[in-house]
């Protein structure tokens, strides 16, 4: 009885562990330390975006523009690095650009009252266009200055055996977790998703909170863009296409309600790992990339259906 409740309460984690068990049987290489670290590294970009996305979805919003923000921020960052901009300055500036782009989404959503889906769909289109204009449709290399070498560490470096992106996501996660669970802002994020009108009438500056939420999402997309750019030592104009869907899938797999007001960041992290493990396993098993998409979609559908079954039977 109690065991059942524990299983139900942690069903994302149970799902992840089950999946790992099955895969480790099918593919013996799966459980090697190298491969596991590899999964963590590959997951980190999606996880970073998904952390910001969790905030947005908790307010009953959605952010489709993250992939485009990632590309534009990455491109701007690459040109700064190639122009020998000091590392710290480039990093901070890139984060601020992402934050500003996200805030623009937030303003359209909360001040102009446009539906989040439409507002960020427009954001996604415009910013992708802006990226293509900015890059002229060609990759931007991070260049040959010394700073490019240190910049590379953000995406390709290691702290001991741990890849730097993994360290980054752990820090980001800790910070966002504390904010969401222990600050007023976090409470307001939940309250807005629970009932925006009630929250407004309680005297909370709903507009301000929402703009900030979208800004944070933009900032996380920019951070992800930086890591990707660093690792490839160049920014691709088509980077990040479709990333919003992986992030949304991670959030939903983690048990956060698309209606807002309910969900956890730990769940999102597990959701991102589920997707990461799945991608990795499909690669290990040499499944063709065409089939991978079908397999991935099916697993996500299965997870969500099981989730809603368990919920209604509990």
């Amino acid at each position, binding site marked *: 009885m109690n065991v059942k409740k524990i299983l139900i309460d942690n069903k994302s984690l149970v799902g992840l562990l089950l999946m790992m068990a099955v895969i480790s049987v099918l593919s013996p290489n799966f459980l090697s330390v190298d491969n596991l670290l590899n999964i963590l590294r590959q997951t980190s970009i999606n996880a970073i975006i998904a952390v910001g996305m969790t905030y947005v979805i908790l307010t009953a919003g959605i952010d489709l523009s993250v992939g485009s923000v990632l590309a534009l921020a990455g491109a701007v960052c690459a040109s700064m690095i190639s122009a020998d901009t000091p590392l710290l300055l480039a990093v901070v500036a890139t984060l601020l650009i992402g934050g500003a782009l996200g805030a623009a989404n937030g303003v359209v959503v909360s001040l102009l009252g446009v539906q989040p889906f439409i507002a960020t769909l427009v954001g996604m289109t415009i910013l992708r266009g802006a990226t293509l204009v900015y890059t002229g449709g060609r990759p931007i290399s991070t260049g040959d200055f010394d700073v490019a070498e240190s910049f590379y560490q953000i995406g390709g470096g290691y702290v001991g055996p741990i890849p730097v992106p993994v360290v980054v996501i752990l820090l980001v996660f800790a910070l966002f977790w*504390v904010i969401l669970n222990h600050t*007023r802002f976090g*409470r307001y994020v939940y309250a807005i998703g*629970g009932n925006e009108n*009630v929250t*407004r*009438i309680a005297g909370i500056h709903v507009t301000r909170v929402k703009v900030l939420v979208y800004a944070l999402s933009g900032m996380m997309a920019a951070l992800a863009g930086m890591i990707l750019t660093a690792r490839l030592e160049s920014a691709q104009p088509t980077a990040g296409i479709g990333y919003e869907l992986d992030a949304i899938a991670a959030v939903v797999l983690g048990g956060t309600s698309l209606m807002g*007001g309910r969900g956890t960041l730990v769940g999102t992290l597990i959701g991102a790992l589920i997707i990461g493990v799945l991608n990795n396993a499909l690669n290990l098993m040499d499944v063709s990339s065409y089939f991978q998409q079908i397999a991935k979609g099916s697993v996500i559908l299965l997870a969500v259906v099981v989730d809603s079954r368990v919920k209604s039977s509990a």
Partner: protein
Amino acid sequence: MKTNTYANGEMMRLEKVSKSFAANLVLDQVDFTMRAGSVIALAGENGAGKSTLMNVISGVHPRSAGEIYLRGKPVNFNNPRQAIEAGIAIIHQELNLLDELTVAENIFLGREPVGAMRIIDQARIERETQALLTRLKQGFSPGTRVGSLSIAQQQMVEVAKALSFDADVIIMDEPTDALSDVETATLFEIVSELKKEGRAIAFITHRLAEIFQICDRVAILRDGSLVHEGPTSEVTETELIRHMVGRELSHHYPYAPAVPGETRVSVNNLSGAGFNNVSFQARAGEVVGFSGLIGAGRTELAKAIYGANPIISGHLTVNGREISPRGPHDGVAAKIGYVAEDRKAEGLVQMHSLGSNITLGALQEMTGRAGLIDRQREKTVVDRFISLFGIKTQGADKPVDQLSGGNQQKVSIAKTLAAAPEILILDEPTRGVDVGAKREIYMLIQTLKEQGICVLLMSSDLPEILGISDRILVMSKGRLTGAFDHTTATQEAIMQAAVA
């Protein structure tokens, strides 16, 4: 034997019905009978199990044990639809209307009459809705969007919807708690008609006078058990209260004359949506009551002062400073607190816990230097309000939507008080609250007043307004039409001003 009981005029009979939510036993072997052509009152404290009993009858919740007989035959409803088809209509305690649909669409939702090619027969639903509205003496049209109606009007739409089923068994869960005397009188006329037509009616209310007005029998629940059942003519109000709360309660309103201090709120020629050229002043340490019919503009005025509705013209001075609030956050900044009339849409985040609702507007005081919320301090505040109001719950972490209606109302008041306002606007604060808790709220208002809080009280409950207000302002059609003192105000004078 079962057919015999039906022959006795027994329409519906519950035998030893029990219900528990998880480990929480909410109904304990309750016997309850509804007869054709008879109105039975169901009374009891907040959380006694009244709504749960009605939800079991109407197929919303499955029962845990016991038997239910309808017209002598045992029934098992798995969902509300089956109950409706068996001839049971229920007006739920909380409004269940879709704001974006029209009145007519709401009433016929899910059973729209269709014509050729399965196209909805719009003319017919409008015609039938209009007939219902006329019967209920409501002035708005079937095509009105429900979201634009007041709470009382929405309640009347719920009544119309229940009538439209033409059911033999009609359950009304606190239908009058949002109505003023005029609408209540209309509703009672309808109830007598339904009675004459031979329908069985169950009526839940916390206004005990209503029980003696229209009910033939009364049943009382306490902590999920039936503690009394009998003809209304054989009990007194005092006895009812004793059955409900297990002790005697004074009938008198706690009231001591105010010692008013400086002016806190000064309103000059204020106009906004729903009210016009309103001027008044309210001082620290006094309770100013606002009376009037539904639609008189009291809620609109309250919201405008708080900042939740725009002000079109005029001046609003709070604590000596003129303000023009652009939103509720400005009202809060001016130390105004507002308890919304509509607790579901404006008062509480239903899916979140009691605790996080109570502290939602008061987190500032509980945030430490690092910006982190002091959970211990938060818990202290939440626990204090739970015990102050006697909120009946399994814990502070339980979601609000699992509380009984009256207990939700208490949470809504606690939420506003937790922010420690200096000016407190209460819009129908005792809506759905039981007799004992009402007294607690009146005493609390008295205490706040003694502490120098300025209280603006909007209420449709005339005895309540007369009982605890130092001054009474009457509104009609958006204007102030009367002003009285505690000592000189009478029910008649107020009613006269209210229809002026």
